[in-house]
């Protein structure tokens, strides 16, 4: 197993089987985020912070749209049960330690978004030889770059003053979400012959 995509074809393109599975995972995760942001977004914005919800919703949708168009898709029979496992994991999860249910739901959404934006680095799978002009390669770079920016909203919220009294509960929920998302990411990568150690480090 390699730590990177490959073997690349003569034009420096990632094999379609690897493209299909990685793009499916990312579409599942970012699609779930888009749905949850859409549900949290009121028709008319009433607070300044809700403008960020709007931005998160459209950025997640853009990532899904980009991957749908940039990926060289190939039939993949395993996707049925893989996607079921992924989608089940993205369900809202109970977060203990919060007196207010709406706050608990917001924390759960933020921890899920943090885990996806921070813990998943698709561009780090690209070997040096990957063709920079290939749309899939560019899409992965863009997804990783945009994730780093989207992440800031989650960091500000989770580190914010309003959650200081619940810091232990937040940290515990966040570490759990990171572990869940990383486990699925690692397993999916292993299924297409890409190794990723527990911390995502590679050389």
């Amino acid at each position, binding site marked *: 197993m390699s730590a990177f995509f490959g073997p690349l074809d003569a034009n420096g393109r990632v094999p379609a089987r690897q493209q299909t599975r990685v793009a499916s995972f990312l579409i599942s995760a970012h699609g779930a985020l888009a749905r949850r942001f859409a549900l949290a977004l009121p028709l008319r914005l009433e607070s300044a912070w809700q403008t960020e919800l709007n931005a998160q919703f459209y950025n997640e949708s853009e990532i899904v749209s980009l991957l749908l168009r940039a990926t060289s898709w190939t039939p993949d029979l395993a996707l049925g049960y893989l996607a079921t496992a992924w989608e089940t994991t993205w369900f809202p999860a109970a977060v203990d330690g919060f007196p207010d249910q709406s706050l608990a739901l917001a924390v759960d959404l933020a921890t899920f978004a943090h*885990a996806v934006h921070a813990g998943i680095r698709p561009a780090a799978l690209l070997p040096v030889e990957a063709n920079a002009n290939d749309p899939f390669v560019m899409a992965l770079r863009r997804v990783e770059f945009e994730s780093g*920016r989207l992440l800031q909203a989650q960091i500000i919220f989770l580190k914010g003053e309003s959650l200081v009294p619940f810091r232990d509960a937040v940290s515990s929920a966040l570490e759990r979400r990171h572990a869940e998302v990383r486990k699925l990411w690692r397993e999916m990568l292993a299924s297409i012959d890409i190794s990723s150690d527990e911390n995502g480090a590679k050389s």
Partner: protein
Amino acid sequence: MPFLNHGSYRIRYELNGPSDAPAYVLVNGLTQYAELWAAYRDALIARGFRVATFDLLGQGESDKPALFISQDDQVTALHLLIQELCNGPVFLSGISFGGLIALRYAIAHGDRLAGLVPMSCFAELPPQLFLLGNALRTGLILGGTSYLQDLLLPMNVSDQWLAPVLDRLDSVKRQGWLVNDVYALQNLMESFLDFQPLTPQLPSIGMPTMILNGEFDFLTPRALHETLRVQIPNSSLVIIPRAYHAFTLEKPALTADLLARFAADVMAGRWHGNKSVWIAPEEAGGELMPFPAGYDHLRAIPVTGAVA
């Protein structure tokens, strides 16, 4: 590869060299990883040392706490690593952020150290460094790890180092980009948000201390090292000629030689800090020169100084 356990976190470390030899423990700076000490490992082992390196929490292959990384946790990780060593002399050195962690360790566990070498280091966040740190953090947030590297590289190394690698800068940055995550670097940088100056505690650092500062370091300039020299009783300040902030990357042979000579002098009882100021040689093995008497070592031009 071995890991230390601190609570639920794992810290990746490496020990090399004879287990009963005096040890050097080396602490990384921001965006760095343990392999960057490879040249030091080889040079110090050849001089009879055991060498301990590790990835700070949040960097390299150590765990990356998702939301907060406290500097106290870094000190605890370092303490766990030093406990892995035998009971012989331990010399501790760190660069930049790693130098700060080394200072904190020396304040908390000084009795375990035979000597300390803070490099490109600081005990306070004066306005310039505070604002530079904030700008670097904003750069990381807006442009990712790669942009932070783009900002740090020209600030931290010389034209002589950059010129031969200019057409392959992406490959120079690649490993640092691969092993560092935006959120983890951001957590490391945000561990300074509630930073309290260490200056009042510096006089408690009783062990021999050699402070290394690049001549042209403008990220952590001379004045920050001067605080260490003035406050740490048994210290001396050694200026590395023509060096910038990251001289450990640029001048490994010279720096490893200085580390080895310092430890040898301490163990032989020859070391006398005296808060003196020295100029390092240009190359490994050369003689250190006392800073010329009558001149102010805090100035870049030779003006007659009033500094004691």
